[in-house]
């Protein structure tokens, strides 16, 4: 009973701040809305017994991606201009498309007879993660590390100032 109420509290926080992301006219408010959405999803991982994933969500998303996003927001505005604001364009068409997606998803969720089982006790997952990454998931694991390296080099290359070429 109590855990159900807490679940709905965190789900409400996620959805409410996702609405802020979707509708706020201030880009910084969107960023902070995304922060609380990510923390709400993190709480969902806690309810689902995914402890390693919960820590990863906080460290990578909240500590990394969100800081990067806010950093980019600050880098790309000028105080004299109005760049921190963003109006909604074509909100009716976008709302229609989003409602269509939501309606079809809900239709699928409610119509399908899921093979739902009563979950057992949530055990610590970190050691199983380590074992899976170095056995069954070795190739995706190594491929992800190469992908991150390529993304890092690509990001550095794209943002580099090209002063020498402009002088020539």
């Amino acid at each position, binding site marked *: 009973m109590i855990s159900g109420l807490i679940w709905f509290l965190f789900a409400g926080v996620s959805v409410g701040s996702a609405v802020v992301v979707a509708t706020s006219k201030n880009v910084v408010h969107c960023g902070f809305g*995304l922060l609380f959405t990510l923390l709400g999803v993190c709480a969902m991982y806690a309810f689902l017994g995914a402890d390693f994933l919960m820590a990863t969500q906080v460290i990578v998303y909240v500590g990394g991606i969100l800081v990067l996003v806010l950093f980019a927001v600050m880098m790309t505005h000028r105080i004299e201009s109005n760049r921190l604001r963003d109006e*909604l364009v074509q909100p009716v068409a976008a709302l229609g498309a989003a409602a269509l997606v939501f309606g079809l998803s809900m239709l699928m969720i409610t119509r399908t007879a899921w093979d739902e089982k009563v979950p057992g006790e949530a055990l610590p997952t970190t050691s199983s993660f380590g074992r899976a990454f170095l056995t069954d998931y070795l190739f995706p694991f190594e491929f992800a590390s190469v992908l991150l390296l390529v993304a890092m080099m690509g990001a550095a290359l794209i943002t580099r100032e090209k002063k020498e070429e402009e002088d020539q």
Partner: protein
Amino acid sequence: MEIGLNHYLTLSAVLFSLGVFTVLSRRHAIVILMGVELILNAAALNFVAFSRFVAENLDGQLVAVFIIVIAAAEAAVALAIVLAIFRNFQTVYVDQVDRLQR
């Protein structure tokens, strides 16, 4: 009240739809990226919910970890592109970037 699979799927559908709405209705490139992050989070939440209630193993959680890795790589490259666009066009609104060169 018992929280079951359908609760998680519904929450995920709501977050996904809000992400779609954000991507479709915004002009600011970084806010569009935030919408993409919402969509990726909704997908990862679905994977974890199915891994707990249906599959009863860790595969869904492992996929969610790879989703987070891809999201990190995507955010780094996309924000680098936004910075490069801002340097060349002095704008971050995607509807104003309609030329291939300055």
